[in-house]
């Protein structure tokens, strides 16, 4: 059995204080084990069950920094560059042996990575020190990428292994991964992503956000009464594709209705409710003002 690498943890209370300090003095990332000693009074480890490995955390940080520098960190600040960094970092984190244990499920482990080892990288990726990006949790700058990576990975050797990571929009990612009842079930979350990708082939990209939000509402509701995670990946894909298909046709119908109403008003036909209320106010105005 492989020994679990015990990673440094930063308790929430110290994270709160560090964020306050960052706002006054720009953070200095810890780059060596010697520098890490400055945080001995704040960093903790699991008391037993593995091997303490601060060097693993340093190595992960070095690799993430290298990926970032490859895309132009710290000078380059274009949004597309940061999105590209996210995708590459997602693949790296999902594959990293450091996060193959229960340590990866701990918020304080990720908080340590952001606050202690990579605060400069986080402030480059998310300006203004938004605390959700530093604290452990679904929005943590790196924890969210790790979760996406392990769930969306189609597996080593599979065709298009990282296709979902590369092609899902940020909005779709948020819809899936900021809902713990969904993201905690890897097969469920992955098949929603697969259905999203398939749907995108025939739905205009401008409609996908609306389609995704509506589909997620239905899927989350149904997941309360049906045990989706016990179904096979194929069954889930078929089920979700049906939901996406239904929702996209409704979105399409609504758009057509809206454009038909616009057209019909121009032709002097029955007005829409909104137009109706406007004409009501016009009539009232006329009644009181005589104009």
């Amino acid at each position, binding site marked *: 059995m492989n020994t679990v690498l015990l990673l440094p943890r930063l308790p929430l209370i110290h994270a709160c*204080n560090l964020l306050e300090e960052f706002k006054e003095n720009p953070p200095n990332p810890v780059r060596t084990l010697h520098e890490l000693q400055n945080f001995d009074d704040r960093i903790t480890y699991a008391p037993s069950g593995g091997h303490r490995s601060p060097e693993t955390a340093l190595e992960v940080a070095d690799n993430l920094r290298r990926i970032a520098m490859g895309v132009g960190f710290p000078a380059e600040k274009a949004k597309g560059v940061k999105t590209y960094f996210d995708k590459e970092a997602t693949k790296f984190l999902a594959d990293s042996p450091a996060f193959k244990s229960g340590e990866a499920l701990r918020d304080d482990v990720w908080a340590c990575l952001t606050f202690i080892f990579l605060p400069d990288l986080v402030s480059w990726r998310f300006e203004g020190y938004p605390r959700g990006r530093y604290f452990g949790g679904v929005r943590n700058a790196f924890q969210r990428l790790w979760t996406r990576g392990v769930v969306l990975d189609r597996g080593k050797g599979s065709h298009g292994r990282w296709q979902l990571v590369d092609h899902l929009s940020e909005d779709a990612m948020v819809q899936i991964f*900021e809902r713990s*009842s969904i993201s905690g079930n890897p097969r469920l979350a992955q098949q929603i992503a697969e259905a999203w990708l398939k749907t995108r082939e025939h739905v205009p990209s401008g409609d996908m956000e609306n389609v995704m939000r509506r589909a997620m509402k239905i899927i989350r509701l149904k997941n309360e009464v049906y*045990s989706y995670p016990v179904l096979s990946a194929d*069954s889930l894909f078929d089920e979700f594709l049906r939901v996406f298909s239904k929702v996209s046709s409704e979105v399409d119908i609504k758009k057509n209705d809206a454009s038909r109403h616009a057209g019909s008003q121009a032709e002097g036909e029955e007005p829409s409710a909104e137009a109706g209320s406007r004409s009501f106010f016009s009539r009232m105005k006329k009644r009181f003002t005589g104009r």
Partner: protein
Amino acid sequence: MRDNMAFPFITIPDELVEFSPWMIGPVDEPLQPANAIFENWDYARDIEVCCGLNLRITDLSDHLQIPLHELRLEVVGRAGTGKGRFPKTVFEIDRRDINSASAKIEIRGKVKGSILSARLNLECAIILASAPGSCQPFSPMKPGSRLWSRHIDILLEDGGDSRFPMESVSFKSAFPGKPHQGAPWYFYWYHGNYHMDFAGSTRLYVNRDMARMHERIVEGDPFILQPVVYDVMSQILEVAAADDLFWENFSEYSEGSIGAQAVHWLGMAFPGKSHESIKSLLKNDPGCFHSSILSVAEMEDDQ
């Protein structure tokens, strides 16, 4: 329309399931009844779990109104782990067909200690395995329909990470020079996303430097706990009630989220009130808004 709806269907009542509760223990050691806390766990300790069900499939067939020869059921055991009310990851540990007239089924699985974290959530569920050819209108028809389930949530390690997030600390050491250094308690919560897990994104710090107050909180003195609970509730409810985003998603918060907790508390403090009247109360009579919360934050006095 069907794809957008979850139609009601008959489920299996507890009376038809003889359940032998979950047992747990280190692998290769005798299992013990699972309690709220599993002591002395660490990553190096793999865990074995099991539970049992005794069923009469004819009774289930009658109750679900599905002919016996068309009824296909499965028992599925799943485990989840990760701090918070929602497990961060869930995986299957065992699955059995119910295929004999009087079925005695055991769900058993080994879980690697190295992949666990903070808690172990176990679920045993009976689900519909395939759609019956013929049935009654309210019979379950969709594969995966959850017909019966039992959960248990077990804290691993010392359990402290998974209970209500509360911690005793010296504020002089933890918050030196901060405005709240002299406060008896400090409730930290991450606002901005009501879908976040309540236990994972909030924490109540109790000031150990204020010895008398600290002692009364730890002892559970209801006169002290009421303002503490009120403070926790009101901080969340004041922000949520004034936030249009919170109301927009009012009916969608999943169990265990900050949003669901806020919805529950609003129901307690303002029963039967509409969104608009609660918002209006906060704006026009904040004293009444806060006192309403204070009145339901009352703790029972056992003395």
